[in-house]
């Protein structure tokens, strides 16, 4: 796949939204305009720490069409792999970073009769950019979040004509799905468990595949460390517990394509030659899992795994 060139960006603004959320504004550092941002699009930021590099994906929350600045919202995850901590504790205004151009794996379905958006926590971010594109189509947004985040999210949603915030377990997804008119499209963004249960409920009610849209994020939690043999490069690398296989490949200076880094797009797919994989992607089929692996999220059950790169 043809990869877009990286875009240099400068951090122009950092704004805390509450104790664990901060909004970061990025501007072009090369004097050019960004590609127009879009509802549902994300970018990848290259974060260069002292000991390692993170390449993390963040939804754009800027209004669609933005070309002079992009905005993202980042939650601090103390138990994460470190990228969010870097953005919360190390990032400063004026710093420059490399960014990949936006990719949209979660676009608005423009033929939908109605949009039903279900978000949990920071999963609300892609929907923030949806608002101006919803136009005349009816919509419903439900956000489940902790009480401590409610005020911050309400501020972010201040320009929405209507929305529903649930801080108690009163969001009954099946009931909600059951009363939607035909032609409604369902959009899900949040932690894996939240998305899975909503998707299962939709399928049980007979929602067609093409009407269910999901944006996965924060998938690659760590796991046991393991060793990867890269057959074509003739290299053997160590994958640490807080590192993804893709990150380990990149750390070994081997070119590997990637887009969403969340197991959804298929871009980083590699051929699996030996080992017992721990598949965590949302892209490959059962039968493809026998011969392929997506290193952005998947790991290894066996101590060693061999892949064709």
């Amino acid at each position, binding site marked *: 796949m043809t990869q877009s060139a990286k875009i240099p960006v400068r951090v122009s603004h950092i704004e805390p939204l509450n104790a664990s959320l901060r909004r970061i504004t990025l501007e072009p550092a090369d004097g050019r305009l960004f590609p127009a*941002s879009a509802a549902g*699009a994300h970018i990848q930021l290259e974060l260069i720490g002292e000991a390692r590099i993170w390449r993390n994906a963040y939804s754009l929350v800027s209004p669609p069409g933005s070309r002079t600045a992009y905005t993202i919202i980042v939650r601090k995850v103390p138990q994460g792999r470190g990228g969010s901590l870097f953005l919360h504790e190390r990032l400063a205004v004026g710093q420059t970073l490399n960014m990949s*151009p936006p*990719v949209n794996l979660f676009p608005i379905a423009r033929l939908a009769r109605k949009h039903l958006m279900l978000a949990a926590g920071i999963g609300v971010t892609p929907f923030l950019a949806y608002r101006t594109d919803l136009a005349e189509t009816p919509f419903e947004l439900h956000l489940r979040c902790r009480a401590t985040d409610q005020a911050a999210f309400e501020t972010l949603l201040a320009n929405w004509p209507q929305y529903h915030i649930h801080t108690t377990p009163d969001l009954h997804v099946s009931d909600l799905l059951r009363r939607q008119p035909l032609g409604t499209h369902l959009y899900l963004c949040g932690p894996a468990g939240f998305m899975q249960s909503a998707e299962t409920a939709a399928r049980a009610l007979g929602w067609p595949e*093409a009407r269910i849209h999901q944006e996965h994020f924060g998938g690659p939690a760590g796991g046991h460390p393991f060793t990867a043999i890269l057959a074509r490069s003739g290299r053997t690398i160590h994958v640490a517990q807080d590192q993804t296989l893709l990150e380990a490949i990149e750390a070994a200076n081997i070119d590997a394509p990637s887009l969403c880094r969340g197991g959804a797009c298929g871009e980083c797919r590699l051929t699996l030659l030996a080992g017992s994989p721990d598949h965590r992607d949302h892209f490959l089929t059962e039968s493809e899992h026998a011969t392929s692996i997506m290193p952005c999220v998947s790991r290894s059950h066996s101590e060693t795994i061999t892949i064709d790169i």
Partner: protein
Amino acid sequence: MFNPDESFRPSFSYKNSDQAILRFPFPFPQDKYMYLVNLEPHVKGGPTAAYDATFDVDEHYIAECADRALTLIADPKRCQVLPHMMAAQWDTLELIMESFAADYPEHFTLIREGDAWTWINRPLNIEQHFTFGDPATLPYAPFEYITRQAQGDFTIHDQRDNDLWMDGGMVTAQADWSLDFDLGMSFMEWHGPVPKAHELGVFDRALKFLLRLQVDAPVRRVNWTMTVNPRLDTSPEAYPVWGPDRTTITAENVAEKLHLRVELQTLFRLPRSNGILFGIRCYLISLADLARVEKWRKRLHRVLRDLDPAVIEYKGLTRTRPAALLYLAQFDDGAPIPPGTAPDQTALL
């Protein structure tokens, strides 16, 4: 630099300068032709100068825009866009205006003050003030507005359900296919009539690739056929006009009358709509002009001679190929020629 008075209709005053011949995007890197997924990054620079810009503007620019306007008067359905494609329309306008202004500052200028844009097109003598995002401020819908000022056909494709849908287009210079017929079709549907390629798995692979096409990383390929007389409009709608041309080829007139028709096809991911813009830029060269490049005349002879019968039929070459082969055979000594499509000479024979 432009030939504003040339015509792609009877009189057929269209002609290529020496420079235009040398920059022709000759399509055959090898002596044998078969379908394959010949997509490559659309970066500036290639075997000829036709690859130097995002959207190539050449000496035929003014005449091609005029020919398009005539075709649209006779048949407005050559430009159609489905209602859900408005974001893709603005994407297209933005991409073409920015590319033209960057690649040809002597001809085009784009001034942007927020949403207040000014577009200056010197060759066509246009100065347009408009509000980006407000279709009412342009004389045509944004896609039609800008593609009336560009060479080559364009289609815009919505991406949904893991497929691409031909949900809009400006098609007045086509090699015998119809936008009015294909509008709203999926990728496999509009490629349905192409022989051989389906069995080769070409379309499965191409679709998978295109679904992941990225912003700022366009790709290109070339396609080809042959056309009698330098006509841009060889559409099914106008078949009664141009179809009979195929019966007029003789050994005496084949060199002047028969043209190799090459499409430099480009594909862009559109950022606002997440759609894809497909540019189909048509180049025409007579066999007589093509024969002024030694490598090209030999190679075209070999490609036509050994062409698969299904491809001959599909490309509509059955009647014209024998005369073309007769003409080209005289130049071909059978000696090996280097691979690639560059002319490998700086002056014409």
